[in-house]
């Protein structure tokens, strides 16, 4: 599955947000029925619902702007992994509860800031879309930060697991703040934002929570990148194979 022809930058930009929300929502959906306590089944599912809902909004908007008659489902179920533009962080596996909540926490902190920026986009429809999901994202961020604090400052076991989760996830946060030519063009057109500008407020917010959680921020090392451009880890292929299996094996337009 290759995609050498570059998309229109605006479409790729929208797909980045849509795919990121979709992949994370898809992963959280796997927790439903298997969470540590019943209340958490409901809570994690709510986050999954919000993210898949957000993905629908970005993807259908991308399809509309693209004008090639690809609707949200065509985009979600008919593209291969090289055509997905999500950041690598969200395709890290669910792992244990600390891995999932750690991933969520690092993502949520960025998500809120990104949506804030997009809310001020010169593109009215993108701004409206971002404003609509911003409140949900703010709630997610509060919830995941609370969990990081509970696990970090909980028991010896939970602290070790949360610390290990952070260490494993850290190489994937760099991509969140790395701009490329698509970002540059979106900034130039007043549509998007410079990812590098989010790093400082993100670090401040994340740092405060980690301190409260008595956790140590992992040291900066090599940062993995590629997701935004369609170059993924091995995990995404399996995730998509599962997600797309019914659509790809049974002929049908309406489901």
């Amino acid at each position: 599955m290759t995609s050498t022809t570059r998309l229109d930058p605006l479409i790729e930009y929208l797909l980045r947000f849509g795919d990121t929300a979709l992949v994370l929502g898809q992963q959280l959906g796997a927790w439903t029925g298997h969470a540590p306590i019943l209340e958490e089944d409901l809570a994690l599912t709510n986050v999954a619902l919000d993210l898949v809902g957000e993905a629908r909004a970005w993807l259908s908007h991308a399809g509309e702007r693209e004008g090639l008659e690809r609707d949200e489902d065509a985009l979600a179920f008919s593209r291969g992994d090289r055509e997905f533009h999500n950041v690598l962080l969200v395709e890290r596996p669910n792992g244990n509860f600390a891995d999932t909540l750690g991933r969520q926490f690092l993502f949520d902190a960025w998500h809120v800031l990104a949506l804030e920026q997009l809310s001020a986009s010169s593109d009215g429809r993108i701004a409206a879309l971002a404003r609509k999901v911003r409140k949900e994202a703010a709630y997610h961020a509060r919830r995941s930060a609370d969990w990081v604090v509970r696990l970090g400052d909980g028991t010896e076991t939970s602290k070790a697991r949360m610390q290990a989760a952070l260490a494993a996830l850290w190489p994937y946060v760099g991509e969140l703040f790395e701009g490329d030519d698509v970002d540059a063009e979106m900034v130039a057109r007043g549509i998007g934002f410079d990812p590098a500008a989010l790093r400082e407020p993100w670090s401040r917010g994340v740092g405060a929570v980690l301190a409260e959680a008595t956790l140590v921020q992992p040291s900066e090392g090599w940062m993995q990148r590629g997701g935004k451009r369609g170059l993924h880890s091995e995990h995404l292929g399996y995730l998509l194979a599962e997600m797309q299996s019914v659509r790809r094996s049974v002929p049908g337009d309406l489901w």
Partner: protein
Amino acid sequence: MPKNARAVRDWPLWEIFIRSDHGLAHKHVGSLHAADATMALQNARDVYTRRNEGTSIWVVRAADITASVPAERGAFFDPAEDKVYRHPTFFTVPEGVKHL
């Protein structure tokens, strides 16, 4: 996964009171388990307002009463408004089909 010997301890039970948009007073809607008050409020939001049923939550454990912060109303309650698929009327039933 090692089984923690102390894990038999259940999270405490909280009673949940919700005031709906048109409600005059907080109404008891049920209970749930949570380790602390913040979690009880968040869980109450996730458990008892999935269909946009509330605008204010109180969680009560023993003699304590903790109320949700009015300023957080937006993030707490607005999201459910557009989840139309949660309501049965979202689905059109073919003509002649009854008892759905």
